[in-house]
């Protein structure tokens, strides 16, 4: 078989088995004597649990709760902190909090038992929105701090803002908000627990098998090695299966410890929609100081609704703050972020991880400022484009050449932007909009070295090589990209490389499959391990293993959030053109043109699929995906009321990939999975604003919200 080259077109390793319906997802697995589990959840947003009335449990049926956690164990899941309780006891903090599991052999009987369980609560007033949280509605969630602020940070650059504001001709102030978003991976959350040789074994739909092990071991106070996580084919994740599988697996661990039979739990769509993590709603208050028509400084106050537990929210908030000035260099900035606790389902990772919120808000803020100043928004923004060597908002520097001018050139030509922007007068019913964005690759600062310390291992057997890493395939194509990197480096065929879904007892920990880090960090590790293997190729069968090494000379202080937050960014530019029916306000999208700089595409077909899908999710986020929480309850409960884009909603996209090799990535590649989500919603809103001559400060903007906005013009 010929050696695979990076530029070769390859068939995804998982495509045929998935298309034939032969790939095994958790829901497809059946083990002998399988038991089933359903969650019993809080039905009130805030209150005390006064009594739990159980029906008589038939033989072989169990109610599992906090009482089943053994004395040496602690009722806590370890994500960033250990605040998320595996089972609520005494009090509940949000609707959908796990109180117990019903477990047994027959699902109809279990559902019946679950519905008979009656829980008495004394309800308290919940804090639901960011403003509720800021105002401590219902009393502070953290009485010791007398506040609901879960986490906070700020960064500042240049002169003090009072000085800058004093010298400004005017201060342009806006409050912008972004909504919840549901991941809506087609495969719902699911896991199976069982025993093998005295160890707890989990089959899980998950992004981060090693996270699960770490998170749940403390429930029984057992060593990590006594828990084995086997990732099954995962039907989409987008961040929704980064930490959340801990919540399923933790509860199942306690049940398994008692029952010792295979136990399967698969959420139905209503459960997955109402009772799983979401994207953080945000509120961003920007004050931009203008002098002689130019921006001289920006102050931003950024609030994220974290729900009742921290999960990954502090890291999400950090990324939000670090992206809060978009792709622009502004001389004086002060950016403050606060993560607000509320009595709602905890929010967690979702493609973009905090960056999409601030990027949408700041991009839209600058568009509105351009309208206010009477200048073309794109020309205005291009004055402030970041370039190599510029100081970032965290007092670090842009390390790479920024190719945005070339990328803007490509998509403005392809879309005929400059002619259309002249032709489409505001309010004419047609509009074209643009957004510029970036995404810092991998963990912030030196986190890859200080926190993760990723490893990768290769084992050679004859002319075959197997990759052992904990990184997962969740649809993004990593099993194919990583095999390609390995094969091309070794100079052998991709068909001779094996890379199975990880089993934590067999692979080394290469860190979470998150933060757009897999290709740039784990791909580089595998490239290094393969280079070493290539040199020793004739030594017979052997193993190579490497550990992450951080490039020197790029300081970061995680205590003060100062320094080089990211060594490399992906960069993006997108244009959206729309036509709005002026009678019905229905929006038809006529075209989408994008350019992304991702260092180097390891596999163009996979990258194309990521671009297309990421932009589609972002267009959904900006236009139609409405998820509202009223009084602590999500109003949308299923796929018929939480609407995601169909094949008919948006047209075929033009895409362009800008090369700009990154020195520390495999073959020059950087992260790209999240970048492609970060801009299209702002471009869509810009286009609709131009078509209707109005302004929006929140998304999404479905027809009914457009009507409402037009009433206020």
């Amino acid at each position, binding site marked *: 078989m010929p050696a695979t080259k990076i530029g070769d077109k390859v068939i995804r390793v998982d495509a045929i088995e998935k298309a034939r319906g032969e790939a095994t997802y958790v829901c497809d697995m059946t083990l002998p004597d399988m038991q089933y589990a359903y969650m019993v959840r809080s039905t009130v947003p805030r209150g005390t649990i006064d009594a739990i009335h159980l029906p008589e449990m038939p033989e072989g049926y169990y109610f599992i709760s906090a009482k089943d956690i053994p004395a040496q164990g602690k009722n806590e899941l370890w994500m960033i902190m250990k605040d998320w309780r595996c089972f609520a006891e005494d009090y509940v903090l949000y609707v959908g909090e796990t109180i117990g599991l019903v477990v047994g052999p027959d699902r109809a009987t279990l559902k019946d038992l679950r519905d008979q369980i009656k829980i008495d609560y004394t309800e308290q007033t919940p804090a639901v929105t960011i403003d509720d949280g800021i105002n401590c509605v219902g009393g502070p969630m953290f009485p010791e701090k007398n506040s609901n602020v879960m986490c906070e940070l700020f960064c500042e650059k240049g002169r003090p803002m009072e000085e800058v504001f004093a010298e400004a001709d005017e201060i342009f102030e806006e409050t912008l908000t972004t909504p919840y978003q549901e991941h809506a*991976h087609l495969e719902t959350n699911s896991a199976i627990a069982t025993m093998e040789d005295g160890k707890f074994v989990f089959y899980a739909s998950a992004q981060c098998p090693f996270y699960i092990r770490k998170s749940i071991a403390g429930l029984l106070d057992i060593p990590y090695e006594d828990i084995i996580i086997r990732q099954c084919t995962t039907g989409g994740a987008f961040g929704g299966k980064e930490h959340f599988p801990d919540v399923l697996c933790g509860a199942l661990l306690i049940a398994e410890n008692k029952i010792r039979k295979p136990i399967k739990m698969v959420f139905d*769509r209503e459960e997955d929609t109402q009772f799983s993590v979401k994207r953080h709603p945000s509120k961003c208050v920007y004050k931009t100081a203008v002098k002689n028509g130019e921006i001289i400084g920006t102050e931003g106050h950024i609030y994220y609704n974290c729900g009742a537990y921290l999960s990954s929210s502090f890291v999400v908030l950090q990324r939000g703050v670090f992206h809060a000035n978009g792709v622009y260099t502004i001389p004086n900035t002060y950016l403050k972020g606060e993560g607000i606790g509320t009595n709602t389902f905890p929010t967690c990772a979702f493609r973009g991880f905090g960056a999409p919120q601030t990027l949408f808000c700041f991009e839209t803020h600058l568009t509105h400022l351009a309208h206010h100043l009477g200048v073309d928004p794109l020309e205005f923004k291009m004055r402030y484009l970041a370039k190599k060597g510029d100081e970032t908002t965290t007092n670090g520097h842009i390390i790479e050449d920024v190719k945005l001018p070339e990328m803007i050139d490509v998509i403005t030509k392809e879309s005929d932007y400059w002619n259309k922007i002249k032709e489409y007068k505001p309010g004419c019913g047609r509009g074209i909009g643009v957004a510029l964005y970036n995404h810092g690759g991998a963990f912030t600062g030196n986190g890859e070295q200080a926190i993760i310390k990723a490893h990768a291992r290769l084992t050679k057997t004859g002319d075959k090589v197997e990759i052992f890493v904990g990184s997962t395939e969740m649809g993004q194509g990593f099993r194919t990209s990583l095999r390609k990197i390995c094969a091309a480096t070794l100079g052998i065929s991709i068909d001779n490389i094996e890379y199975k879904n990880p089993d934590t007892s067999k692979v080394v920990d290469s860190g979470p499959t998150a933060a757009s880090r897999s290709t740039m960090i784990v791909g580089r590790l595998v490239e290094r391990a393969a280079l070493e293997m290539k040199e020793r190729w004739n030594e017979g069968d052997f193993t190579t293993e490497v550990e992450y090494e951080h490039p020197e000379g790029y300081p970061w202080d995680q205590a003060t959030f100062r320094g080089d937050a990211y060594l490399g960014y992906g960069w993006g530019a997108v244009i959206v053109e729309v036509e709005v029916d002026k009678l019905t306000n229905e929006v038809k999208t006529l075209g989408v043109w994008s350019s992304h700089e991702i260092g180097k595409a390891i596999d163009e077909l996979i990258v194309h*699929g990521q671009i*297309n899908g990421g*932009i589609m999710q972002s267009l959904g986020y900006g236009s139609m995906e409405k998820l509202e929480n009223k009084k602590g309850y999500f109003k949308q409960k299923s*796929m018929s009321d939480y609407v995601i884009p*169909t*094949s008919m909603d948006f047209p075929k996209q033009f895409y362009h990939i800008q090369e700009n090799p990154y020195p520390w990535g495999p073959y020059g590649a950087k992260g790209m999975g999240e970048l492609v989500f970060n801009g299209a919603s702002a471009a869509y809103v810009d286009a609709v604003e131009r078509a209707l001559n109005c302004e929006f400060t929140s998304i999404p903007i479905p027809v009914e919200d457009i009507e409402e906005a037009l009433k206020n013009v």
Partner: protein
Amino acid sequence: MYNDVRFTLNGQPMVYTGNPLRRLLDVLREDYGLTGSKEGCGEGECGACSIIKNGKLVTPCIIPVGSIQGAELLTIEGIRDTEKGKCIIEAYAEGGAVQCGFCIPGMVMATYVLLNENPDPTEDEIRLGISGNLCRCTGYDLIVESIHLAAQKGAALWKK
């Protein structure tokens, strides 16, 4: 006692004797082990469980098994080794249509019905043909292109 439900499943005559109110999807997946049809929503919205009933695309998550008396059913397992099925599946692989894969068996079934009815569809006709099948990963463009590819490569198959 329930009445027998007789139908044809992937060419085989079948008799189902249980509760007629069970969802056809559960019967297919659990009684017959045909797990290629996936449950995405349970309410006929997402199309991940799509199968073919008497030549038409249907979602068995909202069909009681008692209502399929006399019907001819085709699931992904019934088409994947046929010439037409292989043509679609290979086009999907070559065209980059598959990401997480959970929607894909249903999407393949929708493609099968579409190309049987319309061997040479336009882009708009393809988009309409798969509009009952949601995909959260791909943004649909590469699925649409793969269906074009299946139409071209299998031209002789579809025009029969």
